[in-house]
């Protein structure tokens, strides 16, 4: 069972109180972009065993979207953070590095 803390309410939410929103920190490529860039944006996703960044929505609560950093193989949660950022904040990256030295995810490390 996955328990994520909503950064807006500060409550520990059970997975079943949340909606999963898929991979985090995607850059949108819309009209006018190249076919390759659009394909990347639309279809290509990370599927790591280990460190992963996701979007979640506190559906049975405040209704807000937020970000979560977690380990897909151990279900350890490194932290949750605001949706209003385009990359994982420093404290989250440091929390991951403390547990998984040398981790990489897309362009983040």
């Amino acid at each position, binding site marked *: 069972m996955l328990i994520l803390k909503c950064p807006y309410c500060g409550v520990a939410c059970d997975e079943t109180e949340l909606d999963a929103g898929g991979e985090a920190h995607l850059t949108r490529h819309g009209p006018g972009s190249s076919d390759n860039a659009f394909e990347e944006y639309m279809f290509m996703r990370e599927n790591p065993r280990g460190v992963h960044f996701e979007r979640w929505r506190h*559906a049975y609560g405040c*209704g807000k979207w937020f970000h979560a950093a977690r380990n897909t193989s151990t279900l350890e949660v490194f932290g949750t953070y605001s949706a209003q950022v385009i990359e994982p904040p420093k404290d989250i990256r440091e929390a991951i590095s403390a547990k998984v030295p040398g981790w990489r995810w897309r362009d983040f490390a």
Partner: protein
Amino acid sequence: MSEAVSALAGSSAHGFVDVTEAGLVGMVTIRGDYGNTEFRDKVATLLGLNVPDQRQMTTGGTDKLLWMSPDELLLVCPHGEADARVGALSAGLSGVHHLAVNVSDARAAFCVKGTASGVREALAKLSPADLRASVLPVGEVRRTRLAQVPAAIWLESEDRAMVVCFRSVAGYVFDLLTQASKPGSEPRYF
């Protein structure tokens, strides 16, 4: 003017806790930016209640103001006064980005009353929320899920909880609470 009726007309059930549909309850959804002091000050002046801190509520006279999200408050007041509250808020907050809507008839409210442990146990059977007293003390609002539908719950006192849900699922929530409080089914966890 038609006669207002609550979803289940005050139905009640008696198990190891008493479940009662709370009848007509006035509820007003207020949305706005808590970071805007003008919004906070005007809401406080208009309602006579301070904007509550995260997950908390403020109480005064017949009204309660509940923190529902970083930009949503729920005012609980006498049913007949909800429209007047909306009128006062809309007039007083004109020019300040906000929303105030009377949602009384879109909601149902239940009272769950019994022993302190019984109240927490009946609710904990239905919700994944951590309902220990150290996590959900009296007066703190928890929005969560009761079986398959959203609900907001809070304890008015150790032996009395309030449950608010959408009116369309009032019958479902009443049946859930009735079933969860069946005598002899206490988990005896709390």
